[in-house]
């Protein structure tokens, strides 16, 4: 597999070029003029494209609103997906209903697409008593089994081997499902990535490794994560096919994910997809990227905004315009406002709930500690 150099602080050859054909090893469908390359067009039905576009707008506005809420001190934290929406939602939209998602912590758009309610997500942001994680984890560390969406933790890469094991178990039981495992390019430096890729390769598990190469792992650029010529090429060492796609191109992401899932479902085993995208925001609300990267780089990527590019496609087809955009934004805004208002009024979790779910039944020591807490003085400021 011939692979182009990684993008870094210098704009990448493939994605910087106005011509979509400049890098033949990066799958791209959506051209700069909004038209689709017929050679790779996944032939998504127009209604689905429109639904995805609306969802991208929701996720973008939600990101914006959550950052504001954090700045206002109303929520503690947010880790967003600004600029990576097409990679996240395009992939989630491409899997089958039977497939499961093993998320990192930046894929709330995928959870919502798969059916997690906006209210449940917002309840997690506020850590209230109706938060699916019962207020036990930071914001953006939710869970949604009903959406076949895993439980989020902060340690890097731990979901990778779990996603492999889950798919492996399904294969043993001869159940027709695959797993889509998300991680950032920084996670490819973790032991978990190696373990997951190696086990998946050896046991040919139906797993799609979805690497969001967003350029940065907090302050560390891609060239500090690897000396490889790409992240997809790492598959070679594990006997796993790798493919790079334009991560800001909904159609390319969709096509690569759908094909990889079909390959897995047909018994072909795992694939690693490197979606080349860019983290337009800081790592999280706790991060200031001005300290380590040049504004010019961000400006370059803003011109490749995945939502603007999809909108251009819809406009070219005569299916979108300013009036529709304004109406959508007003509608989404109202939905978000409602969810925030509801979440803010819901009570915090009960004191007792701190001691539940450590074990299926609380043993004596947890009962004792719970009773001590209940009898004792209350903390201020929560």
């Amino acid at each position, binding site marked *: 597999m011939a692979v182009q150099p990684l993008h870094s602080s210098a704009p990448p050859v493939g994605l910087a070029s106005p011509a979509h054909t400049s890098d033949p090893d990066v799958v791209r469908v959506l051209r700069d003029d909004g038209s689709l390359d017929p050679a790779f067009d996944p032939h998504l039905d127009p209604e689905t494209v429109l639904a995805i576009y609306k969802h991208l707008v929701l996720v973008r506005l939600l990101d914006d609103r959550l950052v504001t809420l954090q700045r206002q001190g109303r929520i503690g934290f947010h880790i967003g997906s600004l600029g990576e929406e097409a990679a996240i939602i395009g992939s989630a939209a491409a899997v089958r209903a039977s497939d499961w998602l*093993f998320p990192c912590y930046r894929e709330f758009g995928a959870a919502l697409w798969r059916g997690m309610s906006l209210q449940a997500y917002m309840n997690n942001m506020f850590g209230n008593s109706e*938060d*699916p*994680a*019962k207020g*036990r*984890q930071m914001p953006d*560390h939710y*869970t*949604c*089994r009903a959406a076949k969406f*895993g*439980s989020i*933790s902060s*340690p890097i890469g*731990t979901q*990778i*081997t*779990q*996603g*492999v*094991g*889950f*798919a*492996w*178990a*399904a294969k*043993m*039981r001869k159940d027709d499902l695959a797993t889509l495992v998300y991680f950032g390019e920084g996670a490819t430096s973790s*032991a*978990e990535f*190696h*373990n*997951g890729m*190696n*086990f998946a390769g*050896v046991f040919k598990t139906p797993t799609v490794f979805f690497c969001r190469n967003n350029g940065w792992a907090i302050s560390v650029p891609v060239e500090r994560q690897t000396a490889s010529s790409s992240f997809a090429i790492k598959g070679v060492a594990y006997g796993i096919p790798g493919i790079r796609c334009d991560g800001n191109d909904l159609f390319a992401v969709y096509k690569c994910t759908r094909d990889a899932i079909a390959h897995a479902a047909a018994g072909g085993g795992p694939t690693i997809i490197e979606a080349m995208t860019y983290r337009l925001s800081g790592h999280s609300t706790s991060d200031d990227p001005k300290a380590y990267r040049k504004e010019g780089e961000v400006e370059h990527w803003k011109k490749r905004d995945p939502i603007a590019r999809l909108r251009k496609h819809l406009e070219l087809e005569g299916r979108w315009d300013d009036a529709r955009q304004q109406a959508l934004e007003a509608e989404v805004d109202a939905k978000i406002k409602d969810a925030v208002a509801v979440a803010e009024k819901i009570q915090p979790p009960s004191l007792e709930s701190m001691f*539940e*779910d*450590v*074990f*299926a039944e609380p*043993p*004596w*020591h947890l009962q004792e500690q719970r009773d001590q807490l209940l009898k004792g003085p209350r903390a201020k400021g929560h």
Partner: protein
Amino acid sequence: MPQMNMVQAINDGLRFEMKRDERVVVLGEDVGKVGGVFRVTQGLFDEFGDDRVIDTPLSEGGIIGTAIGMALYGLVPVPEIQFADFIFPAYDQIVSELAKFRYRSGGEYPAKLVIRTPVGGGIRGGHYHSQSPESQFIHVAGLKVVCPSNPYDAKGLLLASIRDPDPVMFFEPKRIYRAAKGDVPEGEYTVPIGKAAVVREGQHVTIVVWGAMLYEAIAAADEAKAQGVDCEIIDLRTLWPLDIDTIIESVKKTGRVVVVHEAPKTCGFGSEIVALINEKAFLNLEAPPVRVTGFDTPFPYTLEMEYLPLAHRILPALIETAHY
């Protein structure tokens, strides 16, 4: 009733559970064709096939990480870590993931494994085949920890562990894998998790012990008896959740306690046991609680019999505590 050693009893327990419940799978390094380096899984590969007795790549993190994924799917994996000394590449998966899954997902994703691994010294294993890291798992909220001392308990606790809804660290004292023998019923029975055994009743000093050191405690108690000190011996069997009631009941009777374990002294599980006794039975104590343990050094090779809390070190502690 058949006589078995620990290896045979655990093997029998695994076979019984794999027959009973097809969700039970065994995975680990060398557990398949060769039946494990201690032969605990011998014969299971031939009986159940390579989908249920899986030789994995050499990666503890990969074994536990994928086993958690299998558990989330609904299987009941029983991974083996070849030596507890090698468990640390998987520590992140155990601590950050396995132990917290039920809690952090609000109960949506209970992840249940029984992680089997040989522990303890006395086999000329040096640093990396001898350690007893139990307290490093007890300290993590969300894990149950067991350590049987005999074949009957080993099988009974294994069945209970596999059927328990929570993740269990199943520590097997390798020094007595073949040395400890006893009657083991065929088929079904369980030893409840969370229940200690009073191995010997006595009036003067309570000994709290588990695993291979039980036999050293018995030997020391025999010697002490000859010197007029009558010891009560509690084999914890389950380390966490601790059977505090059995310990406190005994300490209230004797007023004196010696805790014995192989792991280093500082922040060893003995520290927690003594703290709990102080909290719950301080006014019943006639002597300071004593710990006889390994030292705060890496586990040594040539001097391992000096490092281990064997009978010759337990005995003076019993006598001094009795006469304090």
